[in-house]
């Protein structure tokens, strides 16, 4: 289904190999798949329960493209199981039936826990969009782990910059962390009888530039941090 969806969108995907019966779809490893494919990948992971769009966050006079998400059911966002390989990383979404491969070269065929592998360049635009998305997945997972159940964890809105691309995987990974800590805004709507619960949850979350939790019961918003434009400009060496 996912495979057909990518082909139906007329994206430059192609079937690269078959690993023990599992098709490997080239989505930017050697093909020209880029931003739109990244966006569609995110849509697949959220199962169309929300809106995915590109926006901008202006840092001085430099507009940095952001991945903007309106999430209808962030409780259901689950982080992938990550498998490290010499050629990159495999991210398995077993519930969804597919894996994402972030590679610098296609690994040898191996057994897969899913029915489809979407392979992309670890430093390319598809990976950039996907990695920015994972910041939101991580924060949603931490809120769930704190104890918010499905009926109390309602919606989310996040905007995370896509850091400048680089062919260097080490620099890319550094920039991904910069995006999370200085260039991301994550907001979630929760229900808690007491604001103290919201505040404790906020304090427990991993660092993001700005995280805010809205308590639907008390109508109050609690914010930790702010988008750090000056530091972001320095960290990304934007002139």
């Amino acid at each position, binding site marked *: 289904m996912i495979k057909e969806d990518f082909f139906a969108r007329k994206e430059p995907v192609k079937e690269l190999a078959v690993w023990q019966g599992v098709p490997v779809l080239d989505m930017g490893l050697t093909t020209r798949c880029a931003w739109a494919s990244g966006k569609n990948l995110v849509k697949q992971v959220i199962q169309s329960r929300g809106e995915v769009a590109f926006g901008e966050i202006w840092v001085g006079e430099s507009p940095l493209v952001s991945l903007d998400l309106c999430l209808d059911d962030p409780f259901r966002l689950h982080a992938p199981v990550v498998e490290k390989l010499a050629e990159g990383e495999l991210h398995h979404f077993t519930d969804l039936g597919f894996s994402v491969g972030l590679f610098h070269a296609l690994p040898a065929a191996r057994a897969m826990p899913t029915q489809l592998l979407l392979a992309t360049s670890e430093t390319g635009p598809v990976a950039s969009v996907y990695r920015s998305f994972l910041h939101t997945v991580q924060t949603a997972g931490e809120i769930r782990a704190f104890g918010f159940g499905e009926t109390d964890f309602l919606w989310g809105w996040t905007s995370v910059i896509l850091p400048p691309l680089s062919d260097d995987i080490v620099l890319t990974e550094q920039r991904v962390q910069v995006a999370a800590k200085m260039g991301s805004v994550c907001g979630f709507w929760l229900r808690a009888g007491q604001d103290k619960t919201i505040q404790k949850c906020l304090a427990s979350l991993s660092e993001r530039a*700005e995280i805010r939790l809205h308590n639907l019961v008390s109508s109050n918003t609690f914010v*930790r941090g*702010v988008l750090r434009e000056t530091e972001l400009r320095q960290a990304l060496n934007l002139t």
Partner: protein
Amino acid sequence: MPKNSALMLNRNAREILEQKVIPFADELGVKILHLPGGSTVIDMGIHCRGGFVAARHFVEACLGGLGALTYGKIKLKTHWVPSVRVMLTEPAIAIMSAFIASYRVPWKGHLVSLSGPGRCIKDRPEDDHFAHAISYYEPEVQEAVFCIQTTDLPDEELAGELCRKTGVPPEGMFIVAAPTGCVVGAVQVCARNVEQALPTLVDRGFPLGNVVEAYGVTPVVSITDAEEIAYGRVNDCLIYGQVSTLYVRCEDEEITQILEEIPFSKNRDVYGLPFQELFARCENDWVKVPRDWDAPCRLVFMNLKTGNTFSTGSIGYDTLQQSFMGKDGFVV
């Protein structure tokens, strides 16, 4: 028959609901109810959670398919907040014939206001002045879509009244409902940016035939379960946060002579007060709200005829910030 009746707002809206909402109710977090009489109710937040995607469909159906809603973001002092952007085709028809909530019917012992393209069906009610501000109507349709902002689930009484007034058979009657205190409620009210501007122009005698295209952007600062607070906040977003742009074709003087009378900021004695407080002063009754208070925050005219641009009004950042944070919220 009016020249534009082929636009078929009710058919467009029904298609949106039948093709994009009803088959995907679970993914959208909405509930579909088939009333015993045959009408369909789509609950987008009363007994379900709804979501941003459902909210987009609510707005686009309510506009009779003559507009597109997308989400963006706006910087509110130091915080980026989500925003809704509405781009309209045939703005006068989309707004005056469909989107304005000025179709009043009795329900549960009170008069309630509905919006949606059902408003433009043949014998439009006399008291829906905005529907009569333009000539568009749809004769002899077999389908109607109405939208209502309510905490009560529409029932047979409401559906029956709407069928009786429009002449539409129950199986063609669709009612979309959401309270203010949910994401669909917040988005659909914040999407009423151009909606707030056009009636203000009508009040001042500006011909809507001059309006060629339109779009509006509004921040969605916060959502809350508390209906009264939610109601105040979404209206804060409109009177202190929305910016609408109208592409018009007219003489510049037609714009300049009314420019200062348009924005909410003309109400200097109350400007800056949260809408919840303003509404309380009017005993929470729209009938008692001064007409000048239902005014856009900021309006931009782009005159195609002369190439000149005019703007009026200003964004009330302090009030929006207050709405965003709430009474006891804080930044650490």
